[in-house]
């Protein structure tokens, strides 16, 4: 495969980016909102990986979490409700040289954008996707989302939701070409960072569901999980995350889970209590759509012209000489 033209442009001097080089404005999220923890982890990732701000794009849909790109001093695309993934796919198809992140919420991804989510998994384009799952619509003021637990009272379900919650992990793990699935919780920043980092380093569609708190509309929903470390199950493996000794002391509910084991990943993913945290599945061998379609080639005017003339030839009626013999010297 040849190299993209944009990847050929190198910087000849050393550049060092600090945290503030990735920070833009003051987030307008509620204090205690899980989005703040995700923003901190992602900005740290950018700094640690020294991602060039001009080569990094955050794409989002609509919702509280989708304000995320505005708080990054990189390129950003705050799109429309549900369509972050196809927008990000277009960016990826056009530009193999960019780092692409997607921020989407449980309404954005699992409801209005659900079709795109399923197909994005299947395309397996190289991007890191954060599902900010607070299990409620926040920006539109407390309506039940597909991931709201059954019985949740909201403005649209005053007597409680009547449906079982959709499980984003099992759905993702059920789609062909799934290549990276992890789950984090906003209240364990250390693991959140490790997962974000692992997701970024995976080439393919890295899907990270982050269970996050909504202090405004569901202030007590996740209380039991916050107060009881046993209700969180940490996944660890030589091929997955390592748990630090200090963390291991607090979170004693652990499982050694091989991220290559899809069957076990599916059964771990089905658990709501305890919440599994870690890398559920990783398969670096799933091909990326953008590589399969071979866009990573230099397009020149000469190539366009040659291709076009060859097509014209197929459809051309050449002028006839008087003897009726076609001549082809245009």
């Amino acid at each position, binding site marked *: 495969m040849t190299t993209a033209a*944009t990847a050929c442009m190198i910087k000849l001097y050393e550049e060092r980016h600090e945290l503030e080089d990735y920070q833009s404005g003051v987030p307008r999220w509620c204090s205690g909102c899980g989005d703040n923890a995700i923003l901190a982890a992602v900005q740290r990732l950018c700094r640690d990986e020294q991602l060039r701000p001009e080569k990094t794009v955050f794409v989002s849909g609509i919702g509280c979490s989708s304000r995320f790109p505005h708080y990054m001093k*990189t390129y950003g695309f705050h799109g429309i409700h549900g*369509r972050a993934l196809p927008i990000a796919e277009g960016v990826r198809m056009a530009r193999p040289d960019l780092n692409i992140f997607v921020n989407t919420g449980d309404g954005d991804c699992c409801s209005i954008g659900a079709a795109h989510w399923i*197909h994005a998994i299947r395309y397996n384009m190289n991007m890191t996707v954060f599902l900010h799952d607070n299990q409620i619509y926040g920006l539109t003021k407390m309506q039940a989302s597909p991931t709201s637990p059954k019985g949740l009272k909201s403005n649209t379900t005053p007597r409680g939701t009547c449906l079982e919650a959709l499980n984003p992990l099992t759905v993702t793990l059920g789609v062909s070409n799934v290549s990276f699935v992890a789950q984090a919780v906003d209240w364990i920043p250390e693991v959140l960072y490790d997962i974000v980092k692992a997701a970024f380093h995976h080439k393919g569609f890295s899907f990270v569901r982050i269970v996050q708190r909504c202090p405004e509309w569901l202030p007590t929903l996740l209380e039991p999980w916050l107060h009881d470390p046993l209700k969180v199950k940490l996944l660890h493996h030589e091929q997955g995350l390592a748990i630090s000794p200090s963390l291991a002391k607090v979170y004693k509910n652990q499982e050694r889970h091989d991220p290559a084991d899809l069957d076990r990943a599916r059964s771990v993913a089905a658990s709501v209590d305890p919440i599994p945290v870690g890398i559920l599945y990783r398969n670096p061998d799933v091909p990326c759509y953008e590589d399969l379609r071979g866009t990573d080639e230099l397009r020149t005017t000469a190539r366009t012209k040659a291709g076009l003339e060859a097509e*014209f030839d197929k459809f*051309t009626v050449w*002028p006839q000489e008087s003897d009726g013999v076609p001549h082809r010297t245009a």
Partner: protein
Amino acid sequence: MTEIAVERILAKQARPARGAPGRKAATVLTQHVVEVISDSGEGAQKCGQALGAIAARMGMGVWTVEIIPAEIRPPARSVAGASGNCIRLGSGKVTNGGDETDLVVAFNEQVLLGRVRAGGLKTGCTIILESMWRDDADPKIADSYVDTYERLVTSGYNVYEVAMERECRAIVPDARRGKNMFALGMLCNLYSLDLQLAREQIALAFGKKAAGVVKTNVALLEAGHAWAEANLDFKYSIPAVRSTEAQIVVNGNTALALGVLASGMEICAMYPITPATSASHYLSDVFEKVGGIVHQAEDEIAACAFAIGASYAGKCAVTITSGPGYSLKQEAIGLAVMAEIPLVVVNVQRGGPSTGQPTKAEQGDLLTAMFGSHGDAPKVVLAAATIEDCFYSIITARRIAETFNMVVVVLSDADLATSQTPFPRPQFSDSWVAPPLDQSPVPPGAKPYDWDATTGLARRFIPGQPNGMHTVTGLAHDRSSHVAYDADSNEESLRARSLKLAALARTLQPPPLFGDDEGDLLLIGWGSTKGTIEEAVERARSEGAKVSSMHLRFLQPLPPGIKEAMSRFRKVMTIEGNWSDNPEDEIIDETNRRYSALAMLLRARYLIDVDCWSQVRGEPIKPGTLCQVIRDKLQR
């Protein structure tokens, strides 16, 4: 069946030519409409296409229209199942499908009936009909055939029965598969076409297959030619001037796809929908050869969002669709308008609303193209007027989209999409192609929406450009692309996006008039009707009518000079393929009449009493119909 009927039928058997073979005298014509119809799968389309190609190579004007059954696999011998081609041949340039058919070759009487009932055939036209059904083992089929034949004859049609399949059986065992080339041979004889060119055309059409296939088909062609020479007592010739320049023959959808190729765009995102999809079929086949890709998205919305993402990242992309798909894209189009991301959207219009008539032509999406989406969402709207225009419109659209950072909608329709006519082979120009991706550093202090106070234009920053980092958003925003809810920012940005249309309008030329600059009646059209309107105007002018026409390629913004042109005519009327209320209807009056789309726009913009005439019959408007419209309008 009565005795009398039999007698009549026998009397109308094919009549051999008088005199020696090869000496039939040809009647000279200036134009003729001929069609070939069969059940689908019997090759009438291939026959028709070959006929058109041979005629085009001889220098005739040709316009080919596909006759497509709406169903995938209609039952054999069904009235709704006609599949084939209608080919208009002319000695000069042919710009439309013309009036009703003059001569038809039909492989069974049922498909023929379908065409008769659709009003497709000229009263008393010549019919060449496969006669094998007369002796069919199934008495129902035989009766149906004889009954139809008899009714056609008594209705005045000039019917020739030909046992095509029996004639072919001497050459091929499965004659059902070969009689299309026999029919081609007959038509070559009847229209005095060059048999050597026909042989070459067959070699071209079957070139990928074994040499034996070409040989067999040439034998069938020659057999048909000889049979017609010996057994049919008429022959035509349409004098043609051979073209001195190379021409290409494609349908409008292929022309659109070639335009995408030529424009330098690299990404087409689409979702299958009739009648747009064949453009993407062709593009899928060839785009990768020049480094482009066609992405078949999971739905219309995703296709549009994907194209917007690619455009945002620096490579203007295109999404190709038809009416219902265009509706689905509206929210995403609003985003591209708001964020000022260049985007080309092609809408190959079909009959609507809803699923409507997917394979039929209509011009019902003009207002939706202009005013679709939500809020004030100014976008450029172009309408391709000819097949050639389908090619150039895409190149123009890409350039406007990237110069003005706007959404450009290109309207075509099912008529242009499936019709073929030769046009001069385009000469490639470097200016067609998009400039390379700008990755230069953004000057200090520059903002992503530094709207020019006069034109509304701003230079956009593309990911990868150092110092240009910002977040584009569909929310109201200021010059820095920061979310802005304040009144001034909102007003400033709306003004800038609107001004871009005025700025573009300043670059446009007044549309030329066809006919005199002044007179009694000015017809105004847009889209695929150009050739038809101009032919009707020409005919009416030859009868002495003071009528002219004007055809609009830019619908938004409108070019200058329209009001001045209209004011020089006593009456102005648009001709459109969309709905308008008939003022003669009982409850319709001047206060509630719904005008055709363009008429409504012209009335609103220029305060001129523009009338309209429109038709939504799912078929191209015929020039003969328009001639009558012109006469009626001038008499009123």
